């Protein structure tokens, strides 16, 4: 999947051709090396990303300087700091690549213009955001009521490929575990 047409046909198979046509016009290729910061805390997210290759994460830095990994993105998915993009307000998070990455991305101005031209696109967008909200709330439950081991198993079921793609410290951080504990659990599962 390299082009915007393929990508949107996959994400939204019923999207009318007229909208598809306008969307393809505004999404452009973008590449970033490993550990590139694409959006810094305090900046307004300028782009809506579609991930073609690689793994990225959004994370917050607490007052004590500690990182909290909020989400990983990888193909096939939207990416970027969603709330900052949609509300056009300063981001509270950092958005960075964890591996060399390729994207298609559209600027807010361009995307907003297409939305204004095609009110039906709002509906597709609402469904996409609803899915995201569903995921965020599910993770909220995982964080509040699962044990570390349950969180670990849930992630390995959902995204086992991450183990081969990103340094384990990021996965441990996402799960709220220290790295030693994480490697212990990983060792037990392999046996």
């Amino acid at each position, binding site marked *: 999947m390299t082009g915007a047409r393929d990508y949107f046909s996959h994400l939204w198979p019923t999207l009318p051709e007229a909208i598809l046509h306008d969307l393809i016009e505004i999404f452009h290729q973008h590449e970033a090396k*490993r550990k590139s910061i694409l959006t810094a805390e305090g900046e307004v997210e300028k782009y809506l990303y579609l991930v073609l290759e690689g793994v990225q994460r959004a994370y917050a830095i607490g007052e004590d300087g500690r990182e909290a990994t909020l989400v990983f993105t990888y193909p096939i998915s939207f990416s970027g700091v969603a709330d900052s993009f949609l509300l056009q307000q300063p981001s509270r998070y950092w958005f960075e690549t964890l591996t*060399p990455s390729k994207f298609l991305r559209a600027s807010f101005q361009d995307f907003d213009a297409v939305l204004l031209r095609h009110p039906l696109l709002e509906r597709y967008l609402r469904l996409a955001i609803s899915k995201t909200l569903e995921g965020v709330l599910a993770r909220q439950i995982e964080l509040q009521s699962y044990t570390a081991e349950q969180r670990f198993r849930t992630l390995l079921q959902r995204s086992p490929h991450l183990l081969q793609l990103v340094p384990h410290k990021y996965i441990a951080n996402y799960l709220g575990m220290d790295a030693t504990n994480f490697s212990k659990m990983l060792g037990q599962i392999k046996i």
Partner: protein
Amino acid sequence: MDTQTLLDQFHQRTEAILSKAVTEWQNLPRQQLLQKPAPDRWSAAQCLAHLNVYGDYYLTAIETAIQRAQSRGNKPGASFRSGYLGAYFTKVMLPDSKTKMKSPANAVPPEVVDPIKVLAKFIDQQEQLLTLIDKARMVNLNQVRIPISIAQWIRLKLGDTFGFYIAHQERHALQAERVIKG
């Protein structure tokens, strides 16, 4: 040599090592990282522990030197030319060099290391190195100098420091790879 091309090459070579560590080594069982080809040879974990000792020194030294240079208003140059010593150190350090070397006592890894911790630290250091290679685009690789770890009075150009540090990593990463493959 063109500065940006050189830094791109440093980035790619570091990326290659880091990618190997992330996609392969960190998923190996501890035992495989600890096995030795012979009683007097290093395990893969020991090879990486050896590199971590140099990382502790050079990454800090490079970071400090870049910051100082920037605060002095140092600007990047279009091209880089190796110094005499820098070129020599890099040449003998590369994996295909025939020169045998003995590690200084402080860089000989202990017999017992925790392979998971060693590898995690190694991966951290490669990520830091990528960041430093990027920061180096803001300063002059000919003018910024870094004292070498074993003799503070010898100061190599930043471009040469990256060159020989990365060559050293390649040398021992290959050694680790050979030990892992058995």
